[in-house]
């Protein structure tokens, strides 16, 4: 039962990340491989704050979301000003840089060994120690995230973002501020990714750089592509399917030394296959 619960909790956390990636890649159409970096920053901030007792869980989570927003604004503002391909380079750069920081800044992040012993979250004095209790917490977070996403998409703002994806020039000609819309969408995506990171670290009570590297960003992209871009349903389905996949692969007899590589090549194949044969994913709209 605990196994099922922890699968559900992780999937729900990844849905938050899926929403974040979908907002950037699906809705606005910005290619990003640095989502895992923001996710990691959120995780390390919550870990550092709650381990040193400077902040309790909820304020730390808010701080993580805030840092996600700030980081994404800082990344997107200079590069999107120029062109989309500059942002591709920037996001690869940020992702590699973040991995370097997570791995090498031993004092702050514990280096390659990671940070063990992150305390379980407490909500206004109420400890959340059991997996089943954490499931409630993550379900609430998931509900809030989906609500935010849904509200933003049905507002005029959501239509503006979709319009930018279709025809940026027309939107600019209609007198809308394209750069502002893109950067604010990235900021919202940063808030989702940062808070998802906080939940992730507190749930596993351990963070290490391998959860936040380029491969993790590719996994996030695969989740959105498989689930379906541009829809709420797509961002929810993707993580549940993709996180079940390693369990399926475990049934096939693959030596453990190449298990990670095999899993990652399956993600790559899924990306190619979906782009070729079903760009709308399982439940999305055409990318």
């Amino acid at each position: 039962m605990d196994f099922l619960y922890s699968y559900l909790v992780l999937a729900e956390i990844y849905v938050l990340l899926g929403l974040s990636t979908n907002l950037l890649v699906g809705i606005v159409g910005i290619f990003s491989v640095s989502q895992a970096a923001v996710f990691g920053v959120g995780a390390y901030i919550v870990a550092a704050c709650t381990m040193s007792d400077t902040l309790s869980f909820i304020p730390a989570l808010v701080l993580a979301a805030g840092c996600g927003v700030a980081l994404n604004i800082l990344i997107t503002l200079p590069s999107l000003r120029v062109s989309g391909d500059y942002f591709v380079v920037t996001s690869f750069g940020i992702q590699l840089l973040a991995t370097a920081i997570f791995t090498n800044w031993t004092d702050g992040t514990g280096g390659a060994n990671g940070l063990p012993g992150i305390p379980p979250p407490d909500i206004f004095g109420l400890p959340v120690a059991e997996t089943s209790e954490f499931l409630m917490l993550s379900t609430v977070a998931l509900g809030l995230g989906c609500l935010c996403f849904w509200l933003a998409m049905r507002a005029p703002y959501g239509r503006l973002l979709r319009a930018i994806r279709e025809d940026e020039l027309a939107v600019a000609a209609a007198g809308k501020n394209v750069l502002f819309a893109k950067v604010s969408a990235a900021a919202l995506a940063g808030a989702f990714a940062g808070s998802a990171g906080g939940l992730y670290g507190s749930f596993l009570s351990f963070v290490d750089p391998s959860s936040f590297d380029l491969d993790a960003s590719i996994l996030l992209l695969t989740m959105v592509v498989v689930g379906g871009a541009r829809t709420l349903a797509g961002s929810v389905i993707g993580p549940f399917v993709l996180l079940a996949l390693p369990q399926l692969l475990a049934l096939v007899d693959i030596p453990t030394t190449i298990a990670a590589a095999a899993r990652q090549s399956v993600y790559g194949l899924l990306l190619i296959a979906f782009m070729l044969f079903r760009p709308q994913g399982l439940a999305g709209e055409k990318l």
Partner: protein
Amino acid sequence: MILLQLLINGIVTGCALGVVAISFSLIYSTTRIFHVAHAGVYTLAGYIAWSLSTRGVPSVLSLLGAVGVCAVVGALIQHQLYHRLERRRASHLVVLIASLGTLAVMQNLIAGIYTPNILQFHISWSQGTMRLGGVLLSYAQILTVLMGIAAYAGMMYFAHRTMLGKRIRAVASNPFLAEITRLEPKTVYVIVIAIASAIVALPGVLVPLDLGLQPYGGIGALLTATIAMIAGGVGSISGAFFLSVAIAVVQNLSLLVIPGEWSIGVTFFIFVIFMLFRPTGLFTAR
């Protein structure tokens, strides 16, 4: 003395990166595809050469084998993937995601078949060293510099003096006009990626002689090369090559004050400076 050694190391790395940059620039300025999978082709070259030479194939033939395999792989990626996507009127984003998927497949297949760890790549002669004015250089490093200069000169000659080079530049500057004047952009794209993949195989084989083979190292090299291409001005062969050398020299000299694991930060810092103050690059074509 250490300063001189770092300077020379920078030039050696820069020549290798420069070849990656001009090959990427050739693809990017012609097809407008941000060919991320190029990093996978670069990595593949080293492993092919390693497999051949450990089976007793002479080193020159191993190099040529790697070049040939990479050209075929590149042409296949264009013909089987990008061309199909283009036929379906896929957006730029879709092509980019497919390219990233290809990179993930290539890197991880390599890691699965060989090993995710660093493999040492030794050929008897590559271990020899030479002392030039107090600076220690291995034969592999000297060969890298010669290869870099030759590839740069060859590329300049090819792009400006040969019929095919002119055809490629015509397609790059206006694909629509090239289509109606029967320059066949579709064929040119396949040729371009095949040539670029063949060229990138050269540093792909020579760099591991010095540093060993690693399945996931390609993306870092490609990122630096892309930054050099942008800083040099997209479409400028000289810009891409010389900025690669300059960035690699700065990166190596920065080792005096900043530890090596942060060198990606130094490269990225250079990119941010260019992006803020000169986004079109130093030598803009046209």
